[in-house]
C-alpha cells in the first residue's frame, strides 16, 4: 500500500463510516473527532447489526454496548462496557477521556455518567432485536455460552446451575487443603 497521510482504515465494508471519518478530517477535525464520528456513524446505521442499538440481544433480550477511543499522542483512553440505554457509546467513551481521570466505565453506572454528560437515556431494543430474542427462546436458547451446568445447556434453556456432585467434591478438597496441605 502506497505510503500517504492522512489515512483512515476501518474494519468491514462500512463505507459510510469511512466517508464520515474522512470528511471530518477534510473539514479540519482532529484524528479523535474522525474516530468518534466515524464509529458513531455505524452506531446510527446499526452496521451489520453488530454495532449500535437493536442488535445482538443478550439472554434477557437487552442490547448493551461496548466502545473505546484512544489518543496515540497522550496515550489517553476512554472506554465504556455493558453500556445500557444510551445509543452513542463511543461518544460517551470520548467523554470519559475529556471529563474523568478514569479509563473504563461499565454497566448502569456508565449510563448514569452518560446522562450526566447530556446523552439521552433510551431503550436500545427494537422489533428486530425482540424478534431475534423470541426466536432464540423458541429454539431452546441455542446457541448459548454456558458449559458444565444443569440442565444441559446444549439442549435446553436455563436457569442453569452447577451440578450437585461437583459442589460436594470441591468442598471436600477445600477442607482437606486447609487442614493438612497449605503453604
Amino acid at each position, binding site marked *: *500500500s*502506497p*505510503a*500517504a*497521510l*492522512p*489515512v*483512515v*482504515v*476501518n*474494519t*468491514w*465494508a462500512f*463505507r459510510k*463510516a*469511512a*466517508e464520515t*471519518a474522512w470528511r471530518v*478530517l477534510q473539514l479540519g477535525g*482532529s*484524528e*479523535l473527532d*474522525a*474516530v468518534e464520528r*466515524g*464509529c*458513531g456513524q455505524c*452506531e446510527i446505521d446499526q452496521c451489520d447489526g*453488530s*454495532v*449500535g442499538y437493536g442488535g*445482538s*440481544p*443478550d*439472554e*434477557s433480550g437487552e*442490547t*448493551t*454496548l*461496548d*466502545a*473505546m*477511543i*484512544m489518543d*496515540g*499522542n497522550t*496515550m489517553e483512553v476512554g472506554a*465504556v*462496557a*455493558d453500556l445500557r440505554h444510551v445509543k452513542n457509546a*463511543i461518544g460517551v*467513551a470520548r467523554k470519559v477521556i475529556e471529563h474523568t481521570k478514569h*479509563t*473504563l466505565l*461499565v*454497566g448502569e453506572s456508565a449510563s448514569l455518567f452518560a446522562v450526566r454528560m447530556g446523552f439521552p437515556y433510551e431503550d436500545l431494543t427494537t422489533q428486530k432485536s425482540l424478534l431475534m430474542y423470541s426466536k*432464540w427462546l423458541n429454539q431452546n*436458547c441455542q446457541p*448459548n*455460552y454456558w458449559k458444565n451446568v444443569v440442565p444441559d445447556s446444549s439442549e435446553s434453556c436455563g436457569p442453569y446451575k452447577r451440578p450437585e456432585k461437583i459442589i460436594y467434591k470441591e468442598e471436600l478438597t477445600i477442607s482437606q487443603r486447609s487442614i493438612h496441605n497449605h503453604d
Partner: protein
Amino acid sequence: TIGMVVIGENGTVASGTSTNGAVHKIPGRVGDSPITGAGSYADSTAGGAAATGDGDIMMRFLPSYQAVEYMRMGTDPAVACQKVISRIQKYAPNFFGAVICANTTGSYGAACNKIPGFTQFHFMVSSPSLSQPTEKVVDCI
C-alpha cells in the same frame, strides 16, 4: 463491530471501536472491543491497530497492542497483522477474527483467520492516493 484507525497528516494516531457484542451473550459479558490493546490501540510513535471477531478469545492475546509493537520494530503493517493472527491460531485454530493495522507513514494492512465460511476480510481505506474511501479485501491465513 467497527474498529477504526486514523492517522493524521502530522502522524498523530487515534483509534476506536464500537459494538453491541456477542448475540445471546450472558448478561454482563464484555468482549475485546472496549479493552485497550485488545479492541484497538494507538501510539503516535508507532501506529495503530483494531480488531474484530470472537472477543472472548481475542482479548486474551491483546492483538492490537502486539501489532503496534511489531510495527514499532519496523514490521510492515500487513505482516504485523498476520503475526498477531498466527499467535492466536496456535491456541484457538478455529477462532473467528480479523485485525487492521496502519503505521505512522500511512502504510496499512489487514489479516484474518481462515475458517470455513470466512476466507476473506473486507475493510475500508481512505487516503489521498485513493480518490474516495475504498473497499479492500485480504485473503485469510
